[in-house]
């Protein structure tokens, strides 16, 4: 596993976090992923961006493809993907906690 969570994804790190977070709730195909991400993050991933990130995540072993439903193919999170997502979100949470605490301490009274 990369020492950096979701390392090596470059510009796809953001979409990858959204995709892994969506798949943490269960397997989904491309269009269902797009709609789910829109609902929980308010971000619309265009098809090219979505599949750019999906193909990289699959190569890294963070997700895997399941049997297709017609032409649609659902994807699910792997153990490795779950661990990477947990590590990545944990790091983000630490940053968010520090930022929120400092905001509360110095800016909430303003």
């Amino acid at each position, binding site marked *: 596993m990369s020492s950096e969570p979701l390392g090596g994804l470059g510009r796809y790190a953001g979409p990858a976090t959204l995709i892994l977070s969506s798949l943490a709730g269960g397997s989904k195909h491309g269009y269902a992923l797009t709609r789910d991400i829109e609902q929980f993050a308010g971000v619309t991933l*265009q*098809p090219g961006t979505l*599949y750019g990130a*999906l193909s990289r995540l699959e190569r*890294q072993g963070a997700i*895997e493809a399941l049997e297709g439903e017609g*032409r649609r193919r659902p994807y699910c999170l*792997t153990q490795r993907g779950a661990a990477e997502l947990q590590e990545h979100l944990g790091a983000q949470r630490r940053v968010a906690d520090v930022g929120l605490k400092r905001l509360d301490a110095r800016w909430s009274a303003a």
Partner: protein
Amino acid sequence: MSPHTPQPPSARAELAAAVHALPERMGWWFIPASLLFWTVLWPVGFLAAAVWLVARSRRLRRLQTPVDRRIARLLRWYPAGWRERYGDEFAALLRDTIEDGRGGLRLSLDVARAGLAARAENGGRQRMLAGVFLTVGWIPLFPQGIVPLVMQLTGVPSRSWFLALYLPQPLQWLTAAAMVALGLALLAAGVRMAGGLTPAGRRQAPVR
């Protein structure tokens, strides 16, 4: 008119004389090369291009709806290996997106950008270099290398556009040999690069 007055040569005789003089003026290889080009290479190339255009047009016509045609056009941004792996499911997503009313210019730009990124990731630069080497390598090898060497050996006077034959005598052999070496090196590099390429998006076993 006196019977001794020289007759002007007929057009046929002029043509025959010109053809006869060709090997001397242009080099012995000119006639077989011309014959090869006009009887084989040019017609075969033209025919192959015509067959390809007709087949492509038929394929496109079989795709019935404008959405089908648009999806096919969008998919072409991606390399063949990627399409083989993700093509069907990506086409299904594109159809859902377009039918949902989100198929504007933004979709086309996003797919084009992602497709080009997939091509670049698939050793695009290496593929391009291999193509350039395999195309350009023939120029130093044959017309600037082997042909001047043969002309040196056979003593044909034409220098045409053969670089080596414009140089002083001792350098002619050396330059032609260097051209052969350069051509072989370029072709070998091209073959080596092309051999190292793998189809894009080939499915790999997932890591569990």
